């Protein structure tokens, strides 16, 4: 735990102090990571959130129809996605895809002496390897979350309009009517925190890897498990802060 905090603060130090010490992060490196982490994750984020939107609409339609209130499927889907499901589901998908990839990459570099090689070349592996990963995930996860929010709402829309026969315009209006700006920005601010969790846990588990291929496998598993737990816990805390305190 102490080590994790120490590594995290060193990464944050290099994010902030790097440019002032004449060692800014390599832009090409960051963009490459952004393509890998962001653009190439759009498909899976879309699928997961889209079908969650569909399921959410179907399940809530059953409940709401008992009160003759099926129209509120629209707002239920939009609010729950933007506040909660969009950020959390996207983060979990990305923890599985990107967090694991970060750990596997750094871990196998560690066991094959590549990290040591960087150090002997007087290249700080934290600055060279980890900072670009954190920065690109901090940018890309909120973007993916927005895509997740939209595709989830699209899933709900399809059920609402084609199955529940709600008028299309009415559905969209109801969706928007109950959606506060606060819903959006709390959701997005969560995804920033989740991005930091995924990148930092991924880097930490990677750099701690010991013992060959088996070690890399174990570290990768640990990285995903720890990220999942921390994301859920952070989500709980942030929801408490945003909606159950006097902010």
């Amino acid at each position, binding site marked *: 735990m102490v080590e994790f905090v120490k590594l995290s603060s060193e990464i944050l130090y290099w994010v902030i102090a790097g440019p002032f010490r004449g060692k800014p992060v390599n832009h090409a490196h960051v963009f490459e990571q952004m393509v890998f982490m962001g653009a190439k994750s759009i498909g899976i984020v879309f699928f997961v959130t889209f079908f969650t939107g569909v399921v959410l609409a179907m399940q809530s339609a059953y409940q709401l129809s008992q009160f003759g209130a099926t129209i509120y499927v629209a707002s239920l889907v939009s609010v729950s996605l933007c506040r909660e499901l969009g950020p959390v589901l996207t983060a979990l998908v990305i923890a599985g895809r990107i967090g694991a990839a970060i750990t596997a990459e750094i871990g196998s*570099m560690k066991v094959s002496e590549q990290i*040591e*090689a*960087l150090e*002997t*070349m007087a290249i700080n592996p934290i600055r*060279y390897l980890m900072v670009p990963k954190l920065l690109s995930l901090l940018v890309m996860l909120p973007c993916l979350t927005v895509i997740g929010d939209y595709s989830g709402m699209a899933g709900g829309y399809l059920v609402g309009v084609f199955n529940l026969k709600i008028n299309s315009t009415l559905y969209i209006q109801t969706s928007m009517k109950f959606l506060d700006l606060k819903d959006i920005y709390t959701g997005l601010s969560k995804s920033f925190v989740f991005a930091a969790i995924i990148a930092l846990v991924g880097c930490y588990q990677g750099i701690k890897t010991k013992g060959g291929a088996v070690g890399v496998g174990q570290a990768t598993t640990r990285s995903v498990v720890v990220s999942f737990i921390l994301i859920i816990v952070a989500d709980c805390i942030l929801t408490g802060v945003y909606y159950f305190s006097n902010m």
Partner: protein
Amino acid sequence: MPQKNITISIKNLHKSFGDRKVLDGINMDIYAGETFVIMGPSGCGKSTLLRHLIGALRPDSGQVFFGDKDLASLSEVQKDQIRKKFGMSFQSSALLDSLSVEDNVSLPLKEHTHLDPNIISIIVKMKLALVGLRGVERLMTSMLSGGMRKRVGLARAIAMDPEIVFYDEPTAGLDPVMSAVIDHLILDLSKKLLITSVVVTHDMNSVFRIADRVAMLHLGKVLEVGTPEEIRNSKNKIVQQFIKGETEGPMNIIDKDDHPVAEVTE
């Protein structure tokens, strides 16, 4: 002939991992411009010693002086200043496998200098030519053979025109011809570029081909230091057993309880 300027001085170096003493009072001077070979059986602590020389490990006690600076007492920033004068060729080559050959060799130049990319690309070509490689710049490192990887690793080690190059088992896992090629390269580089070379190996052919001086390490202690000729004529039975590769002799490969002596890995 090697000049008698001491480049690296090791004073009474001790290191243990847990209960196991790996380095037990090492004293050694390495002179500028010479090719110094550290040999010894697996697990004798030679790789650990090398890791102390590059500042990757901290000694329990004792010092490693680079010039007049004690490596262990330096901050990371100061250490990095010294590391820029080092080159290191790793046993596994340790090429970054996400990068092409050119990006690997140019990495230290890109990170530590403000040279124009065109100039860097010329330097990379020159360094690759020095290790006998042409037209491989665009290849990914995963496409290279073992011998090529070693040579690319070497080209990377000399990219910054280092004063000292460390070689960790440079011929391990290579066929005899490629081993000879690598040995010639090491000699060539130290003559052409006036580099001090520190080579850790247990390949005896290699030792007698390249060494100006040899140190024999056994159970964390220096048994003998001398020229290859002196080592060949050594009276020490352990040294004789090692260079002749005999199974019978004073060197224990089986401990009292009939267990093979464990190799020290970190």
